[in-house]
């Protein structure tokens, strides 16, 4: 589980040449044969334009023969003359090896073959593409709207959508939750949420119960859909998009989200970030990760212990310290808006010694606080009988669903973008990726708690570096022009390790200062899709505990 000795992959290649990621694209082209119509070059990988009826054969060839087992993202967009779905493939073993499969479809008949038989994660991604953009997928098991209500007219991110005409969806038009539901004599449908104390936000779970056992559960999302992608598409790269990523994963992981956007926009615009700023970014991002994991821990225990648990408040107390540090650094406690393209916005606050002192104090107290959590939670026998062996997620199933983050690492999948696809200052620091083979709720909790300790290690090393950094060399922002107009038709997909997993953004530019397409690959979206695999066959309390251990933030699921 230690950092592998990989040579740093150069990822600032000029876009005209193929990115040197070690993938032999010519061999892939030969393998795919006549599925491929032509090749495209994106900033992060080569793309193969594939015929709309050959999607499954191309994808399964790439997956089974070449080992691209991670369908990272499915971006759909509408051009003036066609629709396009892009399948971004990576490998779990080496996420720098990427390939994109581009599937164009004509505007009057936007039907392409679904990728769901090959990758289970495409199920929800394609539903979202259908919902928001309007592409239709053949062979999809259940192509209906996912984020918007069933009765919505039109596809908001398509070109024909009238954005000025409001649509009001009446409650009566939706499925009546009070109507009798006689699906089966032996089972009972119960609607958990969207108003529910334990669904971590407005999530609706349609659970079909046989007694207390969950026979079937289906998450119904979209209650927090704000069309963040559209908001990003109407903001300029340089300044206006940056406040929004804070609001995707709002569970204190703001800087991690901002970094996803900063990474892709800097790649698109060829901006290089100074080293000092990278250290600042790393330190603040890891502080956010600690806060997010503490929140996850607190709410998980709230679900299991009931409403009066002390553990939730202790987690909040510890999180307050982190939020105070972040407030000193960025000015806000949750919606930081701290990163800018090319660096960060503030240096360490003056006097520097005081700030470093505060951070060091926090880090010194952290081990005893984590000890306390171990006393309260992980060593509690009743907690163990509740969480050990429940919510089991097999690694193969997890890979099929595109699960990333602590959930995947707790099933034994050794996937962490900070180490495997390095950015920031992570590769120059000494830290470990935490994995666990337990696959159950208990191991997810343990992974998060140990990741907090690893984040503390990273922060300590960053603080040491910042203290000794040469005074003349403290550039916090590269010199970036006030307006940025990247080249036309430049596309990039970049991901970072957010608090919940792989947070990726696909951006296509059209020569203006605003993105033409901004697609957010949310880790919680893919993680939540795996909930039925984990919860079916177990009891209702286990369902609630599993949902808690997945640690979803609806702001990120629904965007």
């Amino acid at each position: 589980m230690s950092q592998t000795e990989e040579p740093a992959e150069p990822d600032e290649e000029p876009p005209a040449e193929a990115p040197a990621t070690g993938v032999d694209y010519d061999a892939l082209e030969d393998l795919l044969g006549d599925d491929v119509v032509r090749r495209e070059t994106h900033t992060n990988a080569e793309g193969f334009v594939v015929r709309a009826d050959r999607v499954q054969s191309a994808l399964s060839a790439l997956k089974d023969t070449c080992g691209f087992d991670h369908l990272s993202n499915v971006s759909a967009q509408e051009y003036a003359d066609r629709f396009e779905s892009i399948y971004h493939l990576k490998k779990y073993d080496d996420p720098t090896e990427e390939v994109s499969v581009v599937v164009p479809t004509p505007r009057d008949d936007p039907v392409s073959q679904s990728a769901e038989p090959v990758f289970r994660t495409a199920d929800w991604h394609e539903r979202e593409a259908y919902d928001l953009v309007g592409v239709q997928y053949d062979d999809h098991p259940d192509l209906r709207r996912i984020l918007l209500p069933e009765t919505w007219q039109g596809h908001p991110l398509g070109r024909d959508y009238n954005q000025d005409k409001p649509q009001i969806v009446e409650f009566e038009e939706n499925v009546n939750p009070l109507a009798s539901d006689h699906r089966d004599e032996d089972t009972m449908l119960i609607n958990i949420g969207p108003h529910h104390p334990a669904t971590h936000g407005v999530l609706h779970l349609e659970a079909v119960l046989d007694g207390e056992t969950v026979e079937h559960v289906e998450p119904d999302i979209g209650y927090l859909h704000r069309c963040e992608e559209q908001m990003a598409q109407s903001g300029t790269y340089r300044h206006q998009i940056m406040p929004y990523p804070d609001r995707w994963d709002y569970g204190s992981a703001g800087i991690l989200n901002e970094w996803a956007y900063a990474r892709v926009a800097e790649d698109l615009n060829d901006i290089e970030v100074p080293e000092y700023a990278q250290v600042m970014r790393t330190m603040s991002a890891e502080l956010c990760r600690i806060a997010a994991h503490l929140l996850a821990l607190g709410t998980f225990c709230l679900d299991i212990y009931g409403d009066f648990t002390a553990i939730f408040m202790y987690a909040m107390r510890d999180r307050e310290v982190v939020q105070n540090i972040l407030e000193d650094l960025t000015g806000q406690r949750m919606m930081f808006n701290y990163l800018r393209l090319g660096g960060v916005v503030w240096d360490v606050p003056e006097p520097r010694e005081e700030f470093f002192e505060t951070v060091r104090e926090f880090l010194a107290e952290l081990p005893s606080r984590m000890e306390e959590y171990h006393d309260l939670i992980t060593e509690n026998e009743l907690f163990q009988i509740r969480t050990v062996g429940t919510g089991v997620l097999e690694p193969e199933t997890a890979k099929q669903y595109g699960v990333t983050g602590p959930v995947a690492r707790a099933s034994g999948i050794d996937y962490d973008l900070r180490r495997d696809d390095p950015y920031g200052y992570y590769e120059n620091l000494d830290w470990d990726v935490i994995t666990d083979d337990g696959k159950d709720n208990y191991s997810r909790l343990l992974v998060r708690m140990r990741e907090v300790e690893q984040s503390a290690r990273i922060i300590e090393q960053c603080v040491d570096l910042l203290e000794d950094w040469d005074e003349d060399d403290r550039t916090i922002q590269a010199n970036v022009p006030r307006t940025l107009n990247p080249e036309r038709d430049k596309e990039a997909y970049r991901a970072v390790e957010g608090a919940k997993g792989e947070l990726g953004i696909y951006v296509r530019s059209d020569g203006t200062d605003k993105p033409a397409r901004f697609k957010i690959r949310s880790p919680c979206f893919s993680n939540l899709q795996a909930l039925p695999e984990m919860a079916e066959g177990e009891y209702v309390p286990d369902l609630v505990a599993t949902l808690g251990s997945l640690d979803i933030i609806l702001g990120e699921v629904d965007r």
Partner: protein
Amino acid sequence: MIGLLKSMATTMKHALDGKTFTVEYPEEAPDVSPRFRGIHKFSQERCIWCRQCEKVCPNDTIQIVTDDKRQGEQYNLHVAQCVYCRLCEEVCPVDAILLTENFEFTGDTKHDLVYNKEQLGNVPWYKDIDPLAAREPDRGAWVGEGDGEVDYQ
């Protein structure tokens, strides 16, 4: 059994040590950091009506009305819609709009929370802290000096 008893002992220890981490607001108003982003304050004397703040605002919160001679007439800021991102302060070349540390403002209706330039000018400082002075040591930090090359757009 032992783990359970240890958990119970831990919470009892917290109960008996009498420490609290909550404060009794408003008797004990917290100290916020100098960089805290609260409500805006506008200085009509400094403003040059360049409209940079209006242009950069992510959700069109600032509305500026000038007459045909580019003299400023109105400066309206929808305080309830604002996301407090501080981009307006960042791009303003003359420090005409600032985010003070004051978070203690209320309104009864939506209309109460749209401030015109008089109201924005009268916003009090929080605990009399002038944000410019508080942020002085590091304000210029994000404005780079450049490489000396002129970069025309």
